[in-house]
Structure formats: structure tokens, C-alpha cells
């Protein structure tokens, strides 16, 4: 590698680091994304083959035509996906793109492994090991992401469990690792190709087996974890084909993704092992009964709510995924603007796992033009919740369930929640009395200061806007 190219690669690495750094503040986030994209483009220009010659300096062959066509097809698929996806389906989209990346990493590693193993010089155990690692991690990330996508789309949302599942999965993993060990030192042996195909298929199957027992509500954590897996697979590929830009980019994603996964689990107050092996929803579904719930549900009409809101000093909105499903973001914004005109102080309380993925709610509200400085994180707003006149819970359920504080037998006991029950009056907007995504009874609905506004969230909100305007 010439020193000019080395300097360019160093610059590209700095761009990736800055890109991720900028992504962690709302003011600079968009720039950060573009900075990383620019780094990618520059790295493409100086792409080197393993022998150190530029990939673009060779004579044009059919393979290059394939590269151009393939890249264009990918570009079109990516663009259609990126610009047509609804904001509510964002987690699915990330899962799909991640799966594609994992699949690509596995294919690249497989091809390099087969080529290296059958070349004259062979491959060293270290290179073979990193290619096998990339194949294993990449293919399980591929199949796991597809399952995560399907679960978020509502297909077999419930965890699929059977006794001895963790042991069976452990055994499969052992076989995979055994095959990898064998292949590391016998890359070109007689049974190598068969062993490789078996390993590849088992890794694909393992991705499915790993994600199937995890409930739909935990998919964001799974996607974040698989995202960091893909990063590591890409880094391992980078080792194998001696591409530093890939090593740096893959490793950055691998480590930041791991930290992000842990941060998400922390926000849900559950250890990551519990998410991956605990088969959450299955234990929760067993006890949906209203055990320990006292009080009755008290309905309220929109006109009455509008009066409460219009003459309040401080109103806090707690949005949930249900709000997004009802496409009610714009009506919510309209309502808050109307209240703002009357001098009511309005804030949004955002639970770390509101929506289907941490930060998902912020995206959904941003789409409806709610300024981000009106959004307050849970920890920041909880201490002042007892000075809130009206708390409007729209389509949120588990994140405001006081059972997390009060009921030790509840599956969500210990999860940090927004203290909606501490407000003077809490209005819960809900379609019906059905339980939430995790299937757990909500104690909030039965509190003395809680009123239920039943009906479609969007219709109710529009009624509220009209009533506030009139009052």
C-alpha cells in the first residue's frame, strides 16, 4: 500500500469516527451521517486488492460489468426501501438492511475461504479462522434479522419455546464451533467443502433458533445485537482480505453496537442474558389476570378532557406505539400547538423504549414536526410529574404501568416507568381494555385519578382539538 493511500485510509477512519460521534447529538446527527457516507465514497475510490493493486486499475472484464449491475440493483432496492418505508416500520427496515449486510459478509468470507483454501499457497490458520468467524456470524445475523423482521411485522410474534431449547441451541453452537475448529486447520482437506457447507447451513439455522424464542417486544435489542454482529463479521472479512477501512468500520460498528445493546437493556432494566435466553412474554402471558388490582375503570368524554386541558398550567403527553399505529402524531401536534397558544406548558415524556425501538418515538414525533426540545426523557421529567395538571397517555401501556414499581410478581417489576400516576389527573386514551404488547395488566387504569377516554386515538384527538378551540 502506498503511503498516499495509507493517509487516505487514515482520513476515512477519522470520518467514520466523527460520523458516529456526530450521530450522538441531535444538532449534528444529520451531518454525522453524511460525513460517514463521504468516508465510504472516498474509501471506494482507493479500494485495493489483496496484492496491493487498485481494484480499478485492472482491465475491464465481465466481472466488472457484474459489479456495476449488482451495485445498481442494490442501490435501487435500498433507495426504494429507504424512501417508501413508513416511519412506524423503521425497526423492520433496519433489521432488513442489517440482514443483507450480514448475508453479504458471510458470502464474501465463504468465497474467499474457498478460493484461499484451493489456491497454491493455501491460507494461514489465522486468516482461515477470521473467514470462518465472518461466515458464522454473518450468516446467523442474516437469518436472525429476517426472523426479527417477520416478528416485527406481526408474524409469529409470540416467543416459540420448548423445554431444553437453550441446551439444544448450545449443542448446535458446539457443533458449529467444532466444524470451524476442524476447518481452521484443514481448510483444503478432503471433507473440507462438505464440512464448510454443513457449518454454513447450521449457522443459518442457529440464527433462526436463537431469535425464535424471543418475544416481539424484545426485537429492538436483538436487532441492535445482530447489527453489532454484522459489524464484527465485516471486520473479520477486513482481516482476511487485508482491507483496513473494513476492519475499522466493522469494529466501530461492532463495539458501538454492543454498547448500544447494553444501553437498551439498561433502559428496560433487564440484563441482556435475560432478553436473549429468558423467553420473556411466555411467563408474562400466564398472568394477565387483574391480580392485585383495586379500583374501577372510570370513562370520560372528550369535551370534559378538553376543559381540563384548556385550563391546565402544565400538560405532559406520554406517547406510545399505539399513537403511531393510529397515525395520530399530527393530531397530537395540533392539540399541543392549540394548547401552547392558550399559554399551557406542554411537554412530551419519552420513555427510553417507547415505540418499538429506543428513540423510535422521537423519530415519529419529529416526522409530525414536533420540535425535539419539547421532548423530555423519562429521568428528566419524573421528578416533576407531581406538579403536572394533566397527563395525557396516548397509546402507551407498559411504560406507564405502576405495577413495575408496586407489584413484585409482575414480569415488568423493576422496569423504570414514567410516573403518569403522580399527576393530578391522568387521561388514558385507548381503543379498548385489551392488554399491551407484553400482555400485562395495567394498574394505572384503575387508579383514583385516572380517567379513560375510549376510542380511536386520532378521532379522539381531533375531537379534543375542536373542543379546545371552542372553549
Amino acid at each position: 500500500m502506498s503511503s498516499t493511500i495509507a493517509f487516505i485510509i487514515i482520513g476515512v477512519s477519522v470520518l467514520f469516527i466523527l460520523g458516529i460521534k456526530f450521530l450522538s447529538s441531535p444538532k449534528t446527527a444529520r451531518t454525522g451521517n453524511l460525513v460517514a457516507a463521504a468516508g465510504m465514497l472516498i474509501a471506494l475510490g482507493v479500494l485495493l486488492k489483496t496484492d496491493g493493486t487498485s481494484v480499478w486499475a485492472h482491465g475491464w472484464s465481465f466481472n466488472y460489468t457484474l459489479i456495476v449491475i449488482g451495485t445498481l440493483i442494490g442501490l435501487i432496492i435500498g433507495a426504494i426501501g429507504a424512501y417508501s418505508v413508513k416511519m412506524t416500520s423503521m425497526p423492520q427496515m433496519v433489521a432488513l438492511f442489517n440482514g443483507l449486510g450480514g448475508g453479504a459478509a458471510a458470502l464474501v468470507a465463504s468465497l474467499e475461504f474457498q478460493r484461499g483454501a484451493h489456491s497454491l499457497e493455501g491460507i494461514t490458520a489465522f486468516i482461515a479462522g477470521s473467514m470462518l468467524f465472518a461466515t458464522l456470524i454473518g450468516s446467523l445475523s442474516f437469518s436472525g434479522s429476517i426472523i426479527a423482521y417477520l416478528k416485527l411485522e406481526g408474524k409469529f410474534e409470540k416467543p416459540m419455546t420448548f423445554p431444553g431449547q437453550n441446551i439444544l441451541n448450545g449443542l448446535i453452537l458446539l457443533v458449529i464451533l467444532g466444524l470451524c475448529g476442524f476447518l481452521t486447520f484443514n481448510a483444503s482437506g478432503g471433507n473440507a467443502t462438505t464440512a464448510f457447507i454443513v457449518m454454513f447451513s447450521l449457522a443459518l439455522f442457529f440464527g433462526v433458533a436463537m431469535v425464535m424464542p424471543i418475544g416481539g417486544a424484545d426485537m429492538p435489542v436483538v436487532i441492535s445485537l445482530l447489527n453489532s454482529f454484522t459489524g464484527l463479521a465485516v471486520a473479520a472479512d477486513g482481516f482476511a482480505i487485508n482491507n483496513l477501512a473494513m476492519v475499522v468500520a466493522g469494529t466501530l460498528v461492532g463495539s458501538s453496537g454492543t454498547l448500544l445493546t447494553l444501553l437498551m437493556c439498561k433502559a428496560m432494566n433487564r440484563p441482556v442474558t435475560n432478553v436473549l435466553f429468558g423467553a420473556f412474554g411466555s411467563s408474562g402471558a400466564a398472568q394477565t389476570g387483574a391480580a392485585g388490582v383495586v379500583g374501577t375503570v372510570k370513562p370520560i368524554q372528550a369535551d370534559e378532557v378538553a376543559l381540563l386541558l384548556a385550563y391546565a398550567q402544565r400538560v405532559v403527553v406520554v406517547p406510545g406505539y399505539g399513537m403511531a399505529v393510529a397515525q395520530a402524531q399530527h393530531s397530537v401536534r395540533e392539540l399541543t400547538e392549540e394548547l401552547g397558544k392558550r399559554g399551557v406548558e406542554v411537554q412530551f415524556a419519552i420513555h427510553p423504549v417507547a415505540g418499538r425501538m429506543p428513540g423510535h418515538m422521537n423519530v415519529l414525533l419529529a416526522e409530525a414536526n414536533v420540535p425535539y426540545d419539547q421532548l423530555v426523557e423519562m429521568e428528566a421529567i419524573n421528578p416533576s410529574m407531581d406538579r403536572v395538571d394533566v397527563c395525557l397517555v396516548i397509546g402507551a401501556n407498559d411504560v406507564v404501568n405502576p405495577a413495575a414499581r408496586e407489584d413484585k410478581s409482575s414480569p415488568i417489576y423493576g422496569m423504570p416507568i414514567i410516573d403518569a400516576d403522580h399527576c393530578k389527573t391522568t387521561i388514558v386514551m385507548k381503543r379498548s381494555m385489551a392488554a399491551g404488547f407484553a400482555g400485562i395488566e395495567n394498574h394505572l387504569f384503575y387508579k383514583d385519578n385516572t380517567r379513560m377516554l375510549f376510542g380511536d386515538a386520532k378521532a379522539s384527538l381531533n375531537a379534543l382539538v375542536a373542543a379546545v378551540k371552542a372553549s
Partner: protein
Amino acid sequence: MDTNVLFIFILAVFVGFEVISKVPSMLHTPLMSGTNAIHGIILFGGILVLADAATPLAQALGFVAVIFGSANVFGGFMVTDRMLQMFKKKK
């Protein structure tokens, strides 16, 4: 094997941890999507293996790898940008 690469790997692990340690949860989704786009650099791996592909099978698999990688990198950056352009401060 060049140990320099391992050295870079270890440093990158720590940098990756460090740069996002203070990210607010409101940005988790764009951050996940943005880092997802960055590992789309696997497109380069696809280009390299396809450039050297010698058999029809290798060409076919390399072609698929290029499509996957390309969708990952372009789609990832585009969808992240689409999300982030909506984040606005109060005027």
C-alpha cells in the same frame, strides 16, 4: 499476518465504545440505523471477491454479495438521512 491490523482493531473497539457512551436515548434509532449503514462497507468485500471470481458459482454468489452490500450501504445512509432531516428545533 500483520500485527498492526490487530493493534488497529483493539483501538477501534475502544473508540467505538467511547464515541457513543453519551448518546441520548432519543437518538438510539438513528444511531443504530447509521452504524448499520457503516457496516455496509461490506460492499467493498463483495466487489473484491466478484472482481476475482473465476467460476460461475463464485460469480453468482459474488453478484448476490454485491447486491446485498449495496442495498445495505445505500439504503442505510438514505433511510438514516430521511429520519434525521426531520429532527428540528423549535423556531
